[in-house]
């Protein structure tokens, strides 16, 4: 559906997008992930024919953004970072205007307006002036205008930015529910959003593509390389940390055992290796058979966040300080 090859966008002093290539298949919902200023918006603007690329090609449904922009625009629904609302218009009036602009008319236009009013749950504000709507409603009106002409591709630039947690969930559900009919690209710097809504993720940083894979694969990749934390305690008397370590090292599949924390009667170990089921079972059995207590056995927390931080570097983490907190909250959920 979307093919991007060696896409580059240079400005006078910097390169916003640097030789990015990726493909999105029909019906997929893809997360475009990166810290602020990574080039997400620029890429989306190129895909929507708002900006021309400096070099490289981008095709939507087989049409090149430079050669046949009108064909591309007909097939794309775009929600920019701030919803493009005429604040003096009423909701219904605005949606009819956008519908007409996208080529709808007559009965079809009325039907589509009613449909998106219903779909985005904004029918109750149909006659309200857009300037008086809350941020959540404005965002949904923005989504409604993006889908009014039933486009093949939906491009959403930070669709949940600035919403409260309830609105964020509602918006995510709405986006998910749209994924059946449309191919969706959404950009975000919030990781759980990608984990929750997307099938595939494209990570970019400083204009460069750093990873593109399915969300599951990325998580598995992280898990495979991760480690297990084991907390062992002694039932009676002191615990010999060295003995535990030796025992763990004998378990098949274990490559490295590190004693993270040790006390008179308990120790925490980080065990690296193939963290598949059998290894964890073996670890548990080894502890119990030796007469120790197994207090805790868990996968060392790995989420997209860690891969993201690994891939985009520490600087990115510092820039987007909000990310770890939110990601952590989601991990608990």
């Amino acid at each position: 559906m979307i093919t991007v090859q060696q896409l580059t966008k240079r400005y006078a002093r910097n390169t916003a997008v640097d030789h990015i290539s990726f493909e999105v298949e029909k019906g997929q919902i893809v997360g475009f992930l990166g810290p602020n200023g990574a080039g997400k918006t620029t890429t989306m603007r190129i895909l929507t024919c708002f900006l021309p690329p400096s070099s490289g090609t981008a095709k939507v449904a087989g049409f090149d953004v430079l050669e046949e922009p009108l064909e591309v625009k007909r097939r794309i629904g775009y929600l920019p970072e701030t919803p493009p609302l005429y604040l003096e218009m009423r909701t219904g009036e605005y949606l009819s205007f956008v519908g007409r602009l996208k080529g709808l008319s007559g009965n079809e236009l009325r039907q589509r307006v009613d449909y998106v009013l219903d779909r985005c749950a904004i029918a109750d504000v149909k006659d309200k002036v857009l300037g008086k709507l809350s941020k959540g409603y404005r965002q949904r009106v923005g989504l409604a205008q993006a889908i009014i002409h039933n486009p093949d591709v939906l491009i959403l630039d930070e669709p949940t930015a600035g919403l409260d947690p309830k609105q964020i969930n509602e918006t995510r559900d709405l986006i998910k529910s749209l994924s059946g009919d449309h191919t969706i690209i959404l950009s975000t710097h919030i990781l759980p959003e990608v984990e929750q809504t997307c099938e595939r993720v494209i990570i970019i940083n400083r204009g460069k593509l750093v990873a593109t894979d399915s969300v599951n694969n990325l998580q598995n990749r992280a898990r495979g390389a991760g480690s297990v934390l084991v907390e062992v305690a002694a039932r009676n008397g002191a615990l010999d940390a060295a003995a535990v370590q030796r025992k763990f090292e004998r378990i098949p599949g274990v490559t490295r055992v590190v004693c993270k924390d040790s006390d008179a009667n308990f120790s925490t170990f980080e065990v690296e290796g193939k963290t598949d089921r059998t290894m964890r079972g073996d670890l548990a059995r080894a502890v119990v058979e030796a007469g120790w207590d197994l207090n805790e056995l868990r996968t060392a927390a790995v989420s997209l966040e860690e891969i993201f931080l690994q891939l985009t570097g520490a600087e990115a983490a510092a820039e987007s300080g909000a990310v770890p907190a939110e990601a952590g909250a989601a991990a608990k959920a």
Partner: protein
Amino acid sequence: MRNVWIICKKELRSYFVSPIAYILLALFAVIFGFFFWNAVGVFIFMGMESQLRGEMFPMNVNEQVIRPLVSNASVIGLFLIPIITMRLFAEEKRTGTIELLATSPVHDAEIILGKWLASLLLYAGMLLLAALNFLWLFRYGNPDWKPLAVAYLGLLLQAGALLAIGVFISTLTRNQIIAGAVTFAICLLLWVLEWVSGYESATWAQVLSYLSVLTHFDSFGKGVLSSKDAVYYVSLIIAGLFLTARSMESLRWRA
């Protein structure tokens, strides 16, 4: 064409939803009304005076009332035109709605024409208000309607040209006040360029004088339909709209 009309309707609607249109129309009605009242007063006074002196001085409503009033109308327009055009693109750029227009399946030319047409229609609305005043002349007098019609065409052409320049300037900034101020300055300059012809007859003075919108209004004001002057206004309109199109394109390359 359908898209031009969609954009034009949207612009007209936002003129009338915000109080801009009403304020502009009211201002124009008051100012023009005053000019009209004044012109008619002077005309009556001169009529009585010539009667007292026993002169059979030929009084002419077209020459002595309508012609100066039409010039006045174009001067009032000069002040109001920047207010009409300043928001057209500047506001879209500031609020980000330009992204909606630019990513919709419409040509830039259609967007530009639609906006320009809306501004011209609003100006035409003002001229209609002025026409209400002229109606009184027809009610109580017997002026010739043809010179008035030609003058109206001239007013529309002149406004069309200045509006096209205003639309262009509105694409250059996201600040409406800057757009308005620059448009006003340029309109004013195009107005007064004609003055150099008063003391200088060198080629450069003739060129400046030719560029002035005032020079080309004379014939229309007199009720003379001059193709030479019409060509001037039409080319100014085309130049303004062409520059707007270039500017919109460059927005995309720079943005």
